[in-house]
C-alpha cells in the first residue's frame, strides 16, 4: 500500500518490514492487519461537531429509531477519544479555526464526515461573508453525505461508506483521489459568483437578473476589497 498517502506512520508496519523476509511472517501479518482494520472499522467513535440543523438530525440518528450504536458508533464529547469527526452544520469563519483545532486534537487514525450541504460546500451561504464554503477548504474530508439535512439513513450510509473506505485503504485497494483540496484551497467545486472560473459577464448578468438589487455595483466582485496577500501554505496536519 502507499503509505505516503496517510497522515500517520504505523510502527507495526515499520517493524514488520524488517522481518518480512522470513516466510510465514507476511501471512500472519496480513491476518493481524485484517483484524486490526476490522476493529478500527467497527468501533468508530464519533465526535459530533454539531453546529446547526444537521446536529439535530445527528441526534435523531443516535436516537432509538436509527440507533447508531448498532454499528458500534457512540458519540463522545471530547476529541481525544474519537475516531470520526462528523461536521454537521454550517461552519462560519469565526468557528472554522476552532473546528480545525478540534480536528487537530483528535488522535490518528481519524476520519471526517461532512454531513449536509452546509458542511460540504457552504450551501446557499457559500457566498456570504461569514461562512466557509465547505469544510474541505481547511481540513480533509473522507465522506460527503448529501442532503439538507441528510436523513439519519443517509448518515448511516455515510458511516458505511467510511467503513468501506477504511477497509479498502488498508488493503491497498484504495487510492486517495487526487482531488483532495490542497491546504489553502479557496474555491469550492461550484463556481461561485466571483469565481475566476466563471465569466464576469455571467456574474453580472446573474446579479442583475437574479438579485434585482445592485446599487452602484456594491454586490459586484469589483466592489469587494482586495484579498490580503497569501501567506506561504502551512503544513497540513
Amino acid at each position, binding site marked *: 500500500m502507499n503509505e505516503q498517502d496517510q497522515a500517520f506512520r504505523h510502527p507495526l508496519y515499520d517493524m514488520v518490514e524488517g522481518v518480512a523476509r522470513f516466510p510465514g511472517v507476511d501471512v500472519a501479518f496480513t491476518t493481524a492487519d485484517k483484524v486490526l482494520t476490522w476493529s478500527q472499522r467497527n468501533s468508530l467513535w464519533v465526535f459530533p461537531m454539531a453546529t446547526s440543523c444537521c446536529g439535530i438530525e445527528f441526534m435523531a440518528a443516535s436516537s432509538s429509531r436509527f440507533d447508531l450504536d448498532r454499528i458500534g458508533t457512540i458519540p463522545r*464529547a471530547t476529541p481525544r477519544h474519537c475516531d470520526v469527526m462528523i461536521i454537521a452544520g454550517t461552519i462560519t469563519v469565526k468557528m472554522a479555526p476552532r473546528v480545525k483545532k478540534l480536528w487537530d486534537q483528535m488522535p490518528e487514525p481519524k476520519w471526517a464526515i461532512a454531513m449536509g450541504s452546509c458542511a460540504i460546500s457552504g450551501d446557499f451561504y457559500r457566498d456570504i461573508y461569514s461562512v466557509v464554503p465547505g469544510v474541505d477548504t481547511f481540513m480533509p474530508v473522507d465522506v460527503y453525505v448529501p442532503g439538507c439535512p441528510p436523513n439519519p439513513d443517509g448518515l448511516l450510509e455515510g458511516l458505511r461508506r467510511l467503513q468501506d473506505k477504511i477497509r479498502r485503504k488498508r488493503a491497498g485497494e484504495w487510492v486517495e483521489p487526487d482531488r483532495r483540496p490542497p491546504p489553502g484551497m479557496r474555491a469550492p467545486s461550484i463556481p461561485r459568483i466571483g469565481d475566476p472560473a466563471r465569466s464576469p459577464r455571467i456574474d453580472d448578468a446573474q446579479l442583475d437578473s437574479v438579485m434585482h438589487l445592485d446599487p452602484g455595483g456594491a454586490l459586484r466582485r469589483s466592489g469587494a476589497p482586495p484579498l490580503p496577500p497569501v501567506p506561504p501554505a502551512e503544513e497540513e496536519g
Partner: protein
Amino acid sequence: MRMPLDLLLPSWPDPHLDLGEYDPEADLVALNMGPQHPSTHGVLRVKLYLDGETVVKAVPYVGYLHRGVEKLCEKLTYVQITPIVDKNDYVSPMMNEWAVNAAFEALLGVEPPPRAQYMRTIFAEIQRIASHLISIGTWGLDMGGAIGGGATVFLYCLRERELILDLFEEVTGCRFHYNTHTVGGMRHDLPAGWDKRAKAVLDRISARTWEYERFLLDNPICRQRAEGIAVVDPTLAMELGVSGPILRASGVDYDMRRDAPYGAYGDIDIQVPVRTEGDALARALVRIAEMRESARIASTLLDGVPEGPIGALKPVKLHGAVKLKDGEEGYAAIESPRGELGTYVVAARERRGAASPYRLKIRSPSYHAISLLPWLCPGHTLSDVVVIIGSIDPIMGEVDR
C-alpha cells in the same frame, strides 16, 4: 417616576461586573464553556469566571453560527426566502416560515385562505410539541448525562418526535426544512386521511407526556437540581424582550396566540399555562403543559379544517413574482415555541418594484433569551449553568442567524 432596575433589586448579579473589583484573594478560573461543548446546545460559548465551582461572572459569546441570513435575504426574492429562513430555528422550522411570510403578507395586504390558516396553525402546534420534546429531552440530557438517565429520557422524547416528523414528511416530503409555507398560503395540501393519522399521533403523545413528567420532572433529583435555580424576574425578562415559556414561567400571562390572535387562533379558546416560580423547573413544567395544550388545540382544529384553496396568490411560476411596495416597512410576529418570533421588513427602495427586501431583520426569541445568561449564572455552580442553559433552551441558529 419608576426607579431604575438595579436600584429596585440590589441583590441582582451585575452582568458587567468588573473582575478587578471582585475579591482579590480569590483565584479565579476563566473557563470556556463552548463553542463545542455537549450541553451548550450548539455553538454557544459562555466564558465562566469561577471561584471554586461558583460562577462569579458569565459572559456569553455568540456568533459562531452567524450565517448572514439577513444579508442573504437582501439578495433573494421573497419566494426564495422561505426555504432560507427554515434554517434559523432548526428545531421548529415551520415557525420561521410562518414568521417571514406573515410579515410579507401583512405588507402585501394579502390574507391566506382559511384552509391555509388552519393548516398553518395545526402545523405550528404540532411543531411546538416536537420542539418542546427536544427541549425537555436535551434538558434531561444536560442533567443526566449522555450515559445515564438523561439519555433515556432524551431518547424517549426523540422517539415521540419521530412520529411527528413522519406526519410532516407525509405532507411536505421532508423531515424538516419543509419549505411548505409560501407568500399567501401553503404549498402542499393535506393528503387524504392525514387528519386521522395526526390525531392518533397526538393522542399517543399526550398519553405519554406523563411518562417524561414522572421520569424527569417529578424525580426528586431533578427537583433538587432545578428548583430555585436561575429565577427570572418578570420585569427584567420583559425589559430584555424575553418571551415565550421563560416569561410565562415567571408569572407574566402573555401569549401572542391568545392576546394578539393570528392564523386560526382566533377561532379557538387557548388555555395559557402560567407559573409564578420563575425557576428552571417552572420553565420545564410550562413546556410540558404547553405540549398538552398544543395537542388539544391541534386535535380540535383538525376537526374543523375548512375546504377550499390553500393559496391566495397565484402559485409561483417565476421568481420575483411577488413584489412589495417600495420603501414600506412593517413587522409581524408569531409565537414560536421559544417566544415571539418576528420579522421586520423594509421593502425594496432603490430599484423600483424589486422582488427582494431592502432590509430584513429577524427578531429571534433565543437571542433575547441568551442575553439573560449573564444575569442568571452568577452565584450558581458550574453544574447549574448547564441546567440554566438547558432551561432557557436557546437555538443557536436563531441566536446568530
